[in-house]
């Protein structure tokens, strides 16, 4: 049974009006239910690729398909029904005078009937765990609360695929963890999630698939385990390997698999070996 890709990028290039070629011949396919981390230096084309995937930008060459439909034949609003995009800074979105207004903005734009809108707002607020009253003034919320309002307002549109642009940049680590866990719950509910991030640790702990862009081209695309444990590849992409990977390599003689990328993975392997499970030394 062939699963239709949610988003398919076919040999796409994108040149900005000023002449800068931000994306050069990228092809990839996003399957439903995936949890992807999109990595790359600033200027590598991550945001451009994300905007191509939600229809904000139309490719100058190649095709982007959202559930089989060419984005060129769709308006951004139509794409927004399927692909939701949460921008990095919630202040770029928040404009309403009540939380309810703010979160209902998206669904109302999509023409969702009012009774449904109310349900969606309540559900998304519950999902992001925001316990503020519906008539609260969004601009006075704390930074973390604003982030959650922003996510809720996109979730209320009930997209199948959610893209978040650097949700962990510029906020403290505790909060980043909360957001990643929220995304994990989303994925467990059947949504597809793609996070643009610089945090390799979080990518390793939460994402299953990693895509790395470099100079507008697809530099790497594979399982998190494959990619994050590949030292050479990471360094070529301008990223630093995780301590856990380096440590497992150091201890490989003892039987620790060198492709360890998560803390708990390492811990379990270590305990295993210690309890005499395995061990090539002796």
């Amino acid at each position, binding site marked *: 049974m062939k699963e239709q890709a949610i988003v398919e990028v076919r040999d796409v290039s994108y040149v900005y009006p*000023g002449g800068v070629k931000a994306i050069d011949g990228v092809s990839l396919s996003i399957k439903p239910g995936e949890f992807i981390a999109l990595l790359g230096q600033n200027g590598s084309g991550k945001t451009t690729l994300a905007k191509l995937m*939600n229809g904000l930008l139309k490719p100058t060459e190649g095709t982007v398909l959202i559930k089989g439909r060419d984005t060129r034949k769709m308006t*951004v609003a139509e794409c*927004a029904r399927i692909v939701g995009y949460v*921008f990095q800074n919630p*202040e*770029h979105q928040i404009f309403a005078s009540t939380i309810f207004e703010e979160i209902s*903005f998206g669904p109302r734009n999509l023409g969702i009937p009012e009774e449904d809108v109310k349900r969606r707002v309540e559900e998304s607020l519950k999902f992001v765990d925001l316990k503020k009253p519906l008539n609260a003034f969004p601009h006075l919320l704390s930074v973390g609360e604003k982030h959650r309002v922003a996510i809720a307002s996109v979730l209320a549109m009930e997209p199948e695929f959610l893209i978040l642009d650097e949700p962990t940049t510029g906020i403290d680590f505790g909060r980043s963890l909360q957001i990643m866990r929220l995304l994990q719950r989303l994925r467990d509910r059947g949504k597809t999630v793609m996070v643009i991030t610089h945090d390799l640790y979080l990518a390793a702990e939460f994402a299953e698939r990693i895509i790395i862009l470099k100079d507008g081209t697809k530099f790497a695309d594979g399982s998190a385990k494959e990619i994050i444990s590949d030292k050479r590849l990471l360094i070529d992409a301008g990223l630093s390997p995780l301590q856990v990977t380096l440590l497992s390599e150091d201890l490989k003689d003892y039987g620790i698999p060198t492709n360890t990328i998560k803390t708990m993975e390492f811990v379990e392997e270590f305990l295993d070996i210690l309890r005499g499970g395995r061990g090539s030394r002796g």
Partner: protein
Amino acid sequence: MSFEYGLYIPGRGVFHRLDPRAKIIWALTVLAFSIYNGNYMMNPIYGGIIYASALLALISSKPTSFWYKLFGGLTAVILFFSLVFWPASAPRGGRPILIIPILGWKYTDLALNLALSKAFLVLSPIIAIAVIFITSRPGDLFQALVRWKLPYRLAYIPILALRFLPTVIVEIKTITDAQKSRALELEKGSIPSRIRKYIAIFVPLMIRMMRSALELGVALDSKGFGVMKTRTFSRELRWRLYDTFMLCMLIAVYIISLIMLTRIPIWW
């Protein structure tokens, strides 16, 4: 156009090499002569000469297509409205040039002179001022104002506006993108509803700008801005012979054409 230096476009043109003070004085003379012509002389050829000089100044600065499009459009719009509306205030008499039979309108030569002169009155100074900004670094403009005794805390405000122009443009784009991603469709709907939709762009923009203003204030303070009564300028402006020469030449052109044209009756 990237606006990375505000409105300044680096270059080595005639006007780039002028001291910003010379350029400001030039723009003021363009303004003065344009007003004189537009309100009193109403000689379209004279107006045209001044306009041409400003246009040449612009072209010599090698601006990007953005500016050509802007001024091309502006010229067209202002010319159109001038030609249509000013003749109503034209002085009596004059030879009719154009007669529109159905409406019985007579377009006289005096009306044409008036309309064109008014158009040039508006256009020439605008282009001259644009030339100032296109050919002068904001830092140099700042220094020019301060050397002319403007308090430097005040004089820096327009420079900050120039510095943050690209930032504001990017902010507007980001906000618009964010809202479009929430299915905001700005092109659809009736005019009143479309205006209401812009609130979703306007409010975040205002909030971002207020927050940025605070951050900026803190940053400026931490860099000692406003602490002392006067400040040094590391790259000092120097008024050169070149500046005096160019300025005199330009003003001479305006004066000589003025004299020549007032002695010679308008050809038609």
